[in-house]
C-alpha cells in the first residue's frame, strides 16, 4: 500500500475514531434508559426508569435551572457578540478586544468559575474592596450571589466563557463574508453603521456561525464543572444531577441516570430546534424590517453600551484570575480586608510533589491530544487538497457532533465500551476521550488557513520536480507554521479544560489540574484552589504565547542559516 492510499483512508478513519465512542456511548446510555442492562439484571424493555425520573422531587427545579442558565447565557452571549460587532465594526476597539479574547478563550472554565465565585460572593473581593467603610457591612450581607436560586451566577460565568468563543468565530466568519463591500454599499445608500451591519452583514455571517452558536447552546445547557462551582447544589442543574445518579452506590439509580442523560440530550435537541424556529421567525420578520428601509442613526449609544459591557466582562474575568493568583500566595485574607494580611508561599511548597505529578499529567495528555489532532487534521486537509474534494456542510455537522451532544449523554456509555476493550484508566483512553473534543476545535482553527493557502506555491514546487509529500513538508508546512502551532495551542487548551472526559476515561487514576481544581472547590480552602486555578489558567496561556513566539524564532534562525550558507 502506498502512502497516498493511506492518506485516502485518513478522513474516514478519523471520523470513525471519534464517532465510534459517541455512537457506542449513546447506545450504552439509551438501552439502560429503557431498562435494558443485563449485568444489572435489566433484561427487558420498560419505562420504569422514566417513571422514576419524572417522580424525582427535584427534577422540575433542575430543569428550570438548566433552561434558565443555558438559554439566557446563549442569548446574552449571542446578542452581545452581534451588537458589539455591529456597533464597533472595523474600529480599533475590535482589534483590542480580539487580542484579549484569545487568552480568555484559553482559560479553562473551572478556573474562570473559581475566580468569579470569589469575586462576586457576599464575602468576596468586590464587597471586601468597599467594606466596611462604604457599605457599613462589618459582616458580609446574607444574599446569595453565588449558587443563587436562579443560577444567574452560572449564567454570568457561561457568558464570560462563551462570549470570547462566539466573538472569535464571528470575526473569523466576517473575513469570508465580504463584509467591507456590503458595508460600503449600504453606507453609500445612507444607512447608519449599525443598521448597515445588521441588515447586510449579519444575514451573511450568521450562516457561518450557526454551528458555533448551536455548540454554545448545547454546552451551556449541559455544563458540569462550572455548574458544580457556581450553580445551586440542591437540587443542581440537570447535568450535575445526572452525574450524581450515575455515581449513586444504589445500582437501580443507574437506570434513572441513563434516562436523565437521554432527557439531557432531548433538552439540547429541543433547544436547538427552538433556536432554529426562532431563526426562521427572525428571518421572516427581518426581511420585512430590512425591506422597510429605515436607515438608523450613528449608533453611538449602542457602541458605548456594548463596549462597556464587553470590557466589564473582560475586567471581571481578569480580576477573578488575579484574585486566584493572590490567594495562592496568601496565608491569611479575612473579610473585610481588601488584600491578604499575611502572605506566604507555604501552599505552593506543600503542594510541591502533587503539583509536579498533576501538572505533568495535564501537560502530557494535552500535548499528546493536540499533536495527534493536528496530525489527523493536516492529513485530512492534505487529502482534500490532493483529491480536489471540499468538505460538505453535512460532513462539518459530523465534526460538530461531540460539541453538540451533551457529554453526560454519552460518556457513561463509552466508559462501558472502554472497560470492555480493556483500555479504561489508561493513557490511551484518556487521550482518546480528550481527542473527541480537541479535534473539532483544531479543525475549525486550521481548515480556513489551509484552504486559503495559495495553490501556486505548491504547483511551482511540483513543477520543479518535488513529490507531493516533499511539497507538504518543505513548502506548505513551513508556510503554515503559525496557524498550525496556533491550532495546536487551541487543542492543548481544550484538552486542559476537559473535566468529565478525564473523570470517566481516566478511571479516577488520572488527575489533571482541572479535575483537581473542581474537586477542591467543594473543600473551601481558597489558597489551594488559587494554586490550581492559577496553574490551570497559566498552562494554556503559555501554550498560546509559545505558538506566537516560536515561528518568529524559527524564521530568524532560518534566515541566519541561509545567510551563512
Amino acid at each position, binding site marked *: 500500500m502506498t502512502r497516498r492510499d493511506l492518506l485516502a483512508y485518513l478522513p474516514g478513519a478519523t471520523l470513525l475514531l471519534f464517532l465510534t465512542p459517541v455512537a457506542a456511548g449513546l447506545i450504552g446510555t439509551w438501552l439502560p434508559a429503557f431498562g435494558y*442492562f443485563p*449485568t*444489572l*439484571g435489566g433484561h427487558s424493555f420498560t419505562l420504569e426508569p422514566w417513571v*422514576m425520573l419524572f*417522580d424525582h*422531587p*427535584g427534577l*422540575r*427545579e433542575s430543569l428550570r435551572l438548566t433552561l434558565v442558565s443555558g438559554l439566557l447565557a446563549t442569548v446574552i452571549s449571542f446578542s452581545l457578540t452581534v451588537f458589539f460587532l455591529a456597533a464597533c465594526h472595523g474600529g480599533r476597539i475590535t482589534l483590542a478586544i480580539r487580542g484579549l479574547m484569545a487568552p480568555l478563550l484559553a482559560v479553562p472554565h473551572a478556573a474562570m468559575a473559581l475566580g468569579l465565585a470569589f469575586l462576586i*460572593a457576599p*464575602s468576596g473581593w468586590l464587597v471586601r474592596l468597599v467594606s466596611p467603610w462604604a457599605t457599613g457591612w462589618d*459582616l*458580609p450581607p*446574607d444574599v*446569595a450571589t453565588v*449558587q*443563587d*436560586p436562579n443560577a444567574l451566577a452560572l449564567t454570568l460565568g457561561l457568558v464570560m466563557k462563551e462570549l470570547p468563543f462566539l466573538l472569535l468565530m464571528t470575526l473569523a466568519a466576517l473575513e469570508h463574508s465580504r463584509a467591507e463591500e456590503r458595508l460600503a454599499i449600504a453606507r453609500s445608500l445612507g444607512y447608519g453603521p449599525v443598521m448597515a451591519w445588521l441588515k447586510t452583514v449579519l444575514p451573511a455571517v450568521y450562516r457561518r456561525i450557526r454551528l458555533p452558536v448551536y455548540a454554545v447552546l448545547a454546552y451551556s445547557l449541559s455544563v458540569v464543572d462550572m455548574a458544580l462551582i457556581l450553580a*445551586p*447544589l*440542591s*437540587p443542581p442543574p440537570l447535568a450535575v444531577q445526572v452525574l450524581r445518579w*450515575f*455515581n*449513586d*452506590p*444504589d*445500582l*437501580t*439509580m443507574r437506570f434513572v441516570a441513563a434516562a436523565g442523560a437521554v432527557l439531557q440530550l432531548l433538552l439540547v435537541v429541543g433547544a436547538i430546534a427552538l433556536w432554529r424556529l426562532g431563526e426562521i421567525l427572525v428571518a421572516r420578520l427581518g426581511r420585512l424590517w430590512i425591506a422597510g428601509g429605515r436607515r438608523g442613526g450613528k449608533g453611538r449609544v449602542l457602541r458605548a453600551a456594548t463596549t462597556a459591557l464587553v470590557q466589564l466582562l473582560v475586567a471581571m474575568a481578569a480580576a477573578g484570575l488575579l484574585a486566584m493568583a493572590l490567594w495562592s500566595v496568601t*496565608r*491569611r485574607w*479575612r*473579610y*473585610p480586608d481588601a488584600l491578604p494580611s*499575611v502572605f*506566604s508561599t507555604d501552599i505552593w511548597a*506543600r503542594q510541591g*510533589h*502533587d503539583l509536579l505529578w498533576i501538572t505533568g499529567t495535564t501537560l502530557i495528555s494535552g500535548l499528546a491530544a493536540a499533536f495527534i489532532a493536528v496530525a489527523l487534521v493536516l492529513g485530512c486537509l492534505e487529502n482534500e487538497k490532493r483529491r480536489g474534494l471540499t468538505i460538505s456542510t453535512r460532513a462539518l455537522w459530523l465534526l460538530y457532533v461531540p460539541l453538540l451532544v451533551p457529554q453526560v449523554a454519552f460518556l457513561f456509555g463509552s*466508559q*462501558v465500551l472502554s*472497560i*470492555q476493550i480493556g483500555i*479504561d*484508566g489508561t493513557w490511551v483512553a484518556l487521550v482518546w476521550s480528550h481527542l473527541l473534543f480537541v479535534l473539532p476545535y483544531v479543525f475549525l482553527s486550521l481548515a480556513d488557513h489551509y484552504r486559503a493557502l495559495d495553490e501556486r506555491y505548491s504547483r511551482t514546487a511540483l513543477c520543479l520536480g518535488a513529490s507531493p509529500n516533499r511539497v507538504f513538508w518543505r513548502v506548505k508546512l513551513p508556510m503554515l507554521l503559525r496557524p498550525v502551532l496556533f491550532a495546536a495551542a487551541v487543542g492543548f487548551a481544550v484538552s486542559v479544560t476537559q473535566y468529565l472526559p478525564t473523570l470517566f476515561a481516566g*478511571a*479516577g*487514576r488520572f*488527575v489533571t489540574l482541572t479535575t*483537581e481544581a473542581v*474537586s*477542591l472547590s*467543594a*473543600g*473551601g*480552602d*481558597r489558597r*489551594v484552589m488559587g494554586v490550581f486555578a492559577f496553574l490551570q489558567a497559566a498552562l494554556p496561556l503559555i501554550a498560546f504565547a509559545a505558538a506566537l513566539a516560536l515561528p518568529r524564532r524559527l524564521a530568524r534562525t532560518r534566515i541566519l542559516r541561509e545567510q551563512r550558507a
Partner: protein
Amino acid sequence: MRRRIALLPLLAAALATSLGLAGKDAAAAEQRPWAEIADAANGQTVYWNAWGGDERINAYIAWVGERVWDDYGVMLRHVKLADTADAVSRVLAERAAGKTADGSIDLIWINGENFATMKDNALLYGPFTEALPNFQLVDFEDKPSTLVDFTVPTEGLEAPWGMAKLNFIYDSARVAETPGSIPALLDWARANPGRFTYPTPPDFLGSTFLKQVLIELAPDPAFLQQAVVDDSQVEQVARPLWEFLDALHPHLWRGGETFPASGPAQRQLLDDGEVDITLSFYPSEASSAIANGLLPETARTFVLDRGTIGNTHFVAIPFNASAAEGALVVANFLMSAEAQAEKQNPEVWGDDTVLAMAKLDPAERKRFEDLPAGVATLAPEDLGPTLLEPHPSWMVRIEAEWQRRYAR
C-alpha cells in the same frame, strides 16, 4: 424513592448469583504470613480513593505516601474523591463489566452506608484485618465502633483508621453563649437569623447533623439501632426531625434556600464571617484550622450536653484490587503508633486514634503524650457522651426524604 429501596436487595441478590466468580474472590480470607505480604507489596502502586475535600487530610495522606515508600517500597497515589460513593460506584461498574481483577481502586477510605453497600454486594477483599500486625493494638474494648460500623459488623473487611465525633466550632469573638441541645440550637438560630447552616446532605457532615437531630428528638431512639421496618415506622420516628427542620430552615444562612457543599466549605464561611458556627467531625479541628491559618484565633469548640454522634472511619480493599498486598501494607501502617500519633497532632489533622494506649510500649505511648493540646480543643472529659450511629438504612431513608422535602 420508595421503589428504589425495595429494589435494592433484589438487585443485590441478582448480582451475587449472576457473578459467582466475584463472590469467590471476595470470600477468601487473607492467610499469608505478614512477611510474605510485605515482600509482595514492594514495588506496587496503591491507588487510594479517599475523600479529598480537606487540604490538611490530603497533606497527611501525602506524608503516609512518603513513609510507606521509604519503609516498604510502596508507591501511594491519592485519588481525591468528592464523595466516597463515587468509588463504590466505580467498583460496581467494574464488576458489571466483568473486571474481576486489576481493578482501578486498591484502597478506599470508607464507613457507614458505603461499607454496608460494599459488604452486602460482596465487593470487598478479605477478611484481612487479622493478617495485619498492628490490628492487635486497636482499642476494641473502649471503642466498640472499631468492630461495628453503623451497627454493621465489620467482620475483618475494613481496618479501623480514626475516631470521629461530631462537634461544633464557633467564633468566640461573635458568639457569647453556645446552645447545649438541639432545641436550644433552634432558639439560637431564631435569635441570630442567617448565622447558622449545615452542609448539604448527602455530604457526610450534613447527614450526621440530620442523624444527631433524629437521635435527640426521636421518641424512642432505640429503634434507630435496628434496620428500618416499614414506612410508617420511619414516618413516626422521623416526624420530630422534619418539624424541627421546617422550623429551623427559615432562620438559616440564605434562608435555608441553599446549603454549603461540605464541612470545609462551611468552615470557610465561618472564617469569612458569613456564619457563626460550623460543624466538624474532629475534636481538634478548630485548633488545627487556627494553626493552619484557616480560622481566626478566637475559634472555639462546643458539644451538646446529651452527647453527639461518634463513629469510626476505616479503610477497605475492593475485591478486584490490583495491588492488594500494597493496600494491606498501607492499611497496617495507618494503624501504627507513628501514623496514628501524627494524625492526632492538631497541627497536622487532629483525628483521634483508634489505638489502645495500654497496648502500646512506653516509647510509642510517649508519641501521644507529647502531642500539643491545641488552644481550641476540649479536654476528653468535656467532649460529652458519644451517641451511636443509627443503622445505615435510616440514613438512606432520611437523606432521600430530605431531598424530597428541601431540594426542590
